[in-house]
């Protein structure tokens, strides 16, 4: 509860609320599993139910709903009614956003916090406000880099306003997500974001040559794999790029082969920019590389499937025993495919 509400009277004790009939929560006689609310919460929600019943939309409703969501940020009915009240009053929605800034940071795990901002941004129709929101979400993500709601909201801002002008909303996105991956190359939320920016939301300004973009992204993922080979996020992105661009996995065979050896020292000394070698600390062989190579063999089909089966066996029995059932399934499926 914020300081604003400390030491204030209950609504039941305030003369300015005397005209509202509070409505207690009906749960049946001798209710099962009641929540032991504080007196303040019970009082505020009694008055909220009264207000909703009367259909009042006024400044004091904003104060009441603010009080309730401070005690329970997941009270979606209070959020919903607050939003309707803001619209009915023609309230200053920018001011509402600023009021909610600190609140969003404190309660970032709550759906309603982010949905409310989305409703406000939709109503505001202001790209400038959206740009400010990008900065705001970047600050929040700096503290909690994988917050699902914040990421979804940021992605919504980008596609909803879809401002691809020079210096527009999309402009700084790839560089920003690269910064996040510099900080933590294992941040899967950032990888997903990159996929959305580059592949899943149309073509960005300057990205018209899709083949070139494919090469750049593939190279980007390979560099990140070299840095920390046992990082599923980077491998998943690489696979995503290949599948999206319908590029055969076999085009990466020489890269992947660097990661299936049992010791990084065995890797060739020659510097090959297309096929970055694992760093010194890399723990090899890398399960993701083995899996990838088996997929290459399976895609090639015919005699090659036997090689895939050998790899799947080694994954099942040695390198990735937790997924033994899955690798056995892949063996059955692969052999069936080879016969068909």
């Amino acid at each position, binding site marked *: 509860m914020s300081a604003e509400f400390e030491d204030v009277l209950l609504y039941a004790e305030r003369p300015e609320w005397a005209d509202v009939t509070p409505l207690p929560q009906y*749960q049946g006689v001798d209710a099962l599993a009641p929540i*032991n609310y504080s007196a303040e919460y019970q009082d505020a929600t009694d008055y909220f139910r009264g207000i909703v019943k009367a259909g009042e939309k006024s400044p004091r409703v904003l104060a009441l709903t603010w009080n309730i969501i401070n005690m*329970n940020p997941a009270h979606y009915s209070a959020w919903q009614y607050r939003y309707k009240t803001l619209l009915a009053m023609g309230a200053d929605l920018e001011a509402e956003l600023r009021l909610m800034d600190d609140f969003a940071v404190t309660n970032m795990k709550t759906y309603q916090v982010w949905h409310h901002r989305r409703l406000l941004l939709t109503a505001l129709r202001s790209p400038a406000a959206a740009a400010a929101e990008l900065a705001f979400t970047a600050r929040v993500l700096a503290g909690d880099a994988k917050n699902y709601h914040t990421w979804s909201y940021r992605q919504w801002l980008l596609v*909803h306003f879809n401002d691809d002008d020079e210096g527009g909303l999309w402009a700084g996105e790839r560089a920003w997500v690269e910064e996040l991956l510099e900080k933590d190359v294992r*941040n*899967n939320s950032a990888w997903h974001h990159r996929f959305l920016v580059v592949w899943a939301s149309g073509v960005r300004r300057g990205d018209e040559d899709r083949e070139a973009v494919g090469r750049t992204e593939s190279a980007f993922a390979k560099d990140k794999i070299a840095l920390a080979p*046992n990082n599923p996020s980077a491998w998943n992105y690489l696979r995503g790029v290949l599948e999206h661009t319908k590029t055969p996995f076999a085009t990466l065979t020489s890269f992947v082969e660097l990661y299936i050896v049992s010791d990084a020292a065995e890797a060739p000394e020659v510097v090959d920019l297309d096929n970055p070698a*694992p760093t010194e600390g890399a723990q090899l062989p890398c399960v993701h590389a083995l899996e990838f190579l088996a997929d290459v063999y399976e895609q090639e089909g015919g005699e090659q499937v036997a090689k895939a089966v050998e790899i799947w066996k080694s994954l099942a029995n040695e390198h990735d025993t*937790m997924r033994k*059932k899955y690798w056995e399934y892949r063996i059955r499926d692969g052999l069936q495919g080879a016969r068909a």
Partner: protein
Amino acid sequence: MASPRDLRPTPTDGYSTATSFMQQDTEETLLAHLPQSLASGGVIASQNVPAVLQRNVHMQYLLRNLRQGFPQRYTGQDASQAWLMHWTFQAFSCLGVGMDGETKRKAREKILAMQHESGGFGGGPSQAPHLLATYAAVSALAVVGEPGPGGGWDEIDRQKMYEFFMSVKQSDGSFLVSHHGEVDVRGLYCLLAVATLLNLLTPELLQGVPEFIASCQTYEGGFGNASFPDWAFSTDGYDPAAPRPVLGEAHGGYTFCALASWVFLQPYLRIYYKSKPPSTADAPAAIDRIPPTINMRSLIRWLTHMQGTGIELGGFKGRTNKLVDGCYSWWVGGCFPLVDGLLGPGASAATHETETATKAEHAQASAEDNDWLDIDDALFNREALQEYVLFAGQHPAGGLRDKPPKHPDSYHTLYCLAGLSAAQHRVGPDHSRREALLQSWDADAARQKAVASGPPDSQERLDSLRRESFLDALCWLEDEGADKYVGGSANRVNATQPLFNLTITHTELMMKHFYQQNLPSRVPKAAATRP
């Protein structure tokens, strides 16, 4: 015999980041909860390994919440009161705990107080109607309710509920969770589960839903929480070529909701997407659209990769490079029976059918020596998931949890137990059960119990949708020869119908009532083939 656990830490490649630091901390904590006998790669020996489901303390935990109520810190769940009911009652169902008549009556009274006058249920009394709360309330009523006055079932205003559903429907096939609320696949799952249970399915309700679900699959194979509709659905109409980007990465909870929704939609896909000319005058052409597809290969890959390694005790995580959490035992673990159901019998094991009798024999053997021969064809490690729930998920003082040293709560108590159930049992669609249900199907009775819907549709096709949805939902049976209990059968929890997260019996009773059908008696799947 249990295979020795590979307890190697997740490789950090000499390159630590925030993610790998948190991962290491968690691995150390979890490793401390692994019994010594497993740590040394030994055999599971029940006499010296505490692989015991503490049924009684969990039941006491749930009962305490029910009788004494929830402490003040649960104020944040004031809008989830229907969920608190569902989590508690379904956890009882898992544990095989029945409730007395008076408790059930009070529970019905409490749940019905959350029904909104404009249709659907709110998270608490006088709260706005919400899809999630509606599922939670109806699921809870499936456990504590019955037909007849005061039984709770006939007090559900299904006509108004249907109108509420239609009032939150969007043009892209998605649904708002509440008026002015967000769109996501959780709400859609909740709506489809309830509409299937209560006989509310219509083509107008389902229009566009398969395309929406398919659009939420990410490049990783799992599903995100929603897709963006405005490029494909503008004032100019529908553009199937426009991108519908997924907002949010692949996530266990959303993936369960999307996958279960996809299974619910199979009858609609079969009946309404057939592109063939009208055969008779009163049967208009099926909607001539290409049925959307989901990528099962990448989905299976993603699901199996959510299982943590030995050092994570085989628990499930909800996203790539995140930490294991007991609740994903269900959200991800519960996806596997759904995948098996979609692939059809024998798909995950070519020899599945011929092995049934052998399995039953082995099951009898396993009851004696508390061991099993590994003929299991599941796609994930069922023993390891049970170990996670038993060793890490249980709080010593009762209730289950995310991971140690966290506190238990109602949510994790149910989803850990449901995940344990998914790992212990094999539940799947059964062909002969489906045939038996079809034989006794009464189309007129089901039609009379349905709600009045919007635009007229071919009655024949609507009858088919109702019948197929009923058969698809109720033909799931437990393969009783394929169960596995880490720590012995004393740890058995009830089997779970994976589409609804209810027991098979509760699902049957409720659907029997709302489709007004007579159900043929059930013969256990494996027992039928036993000599």
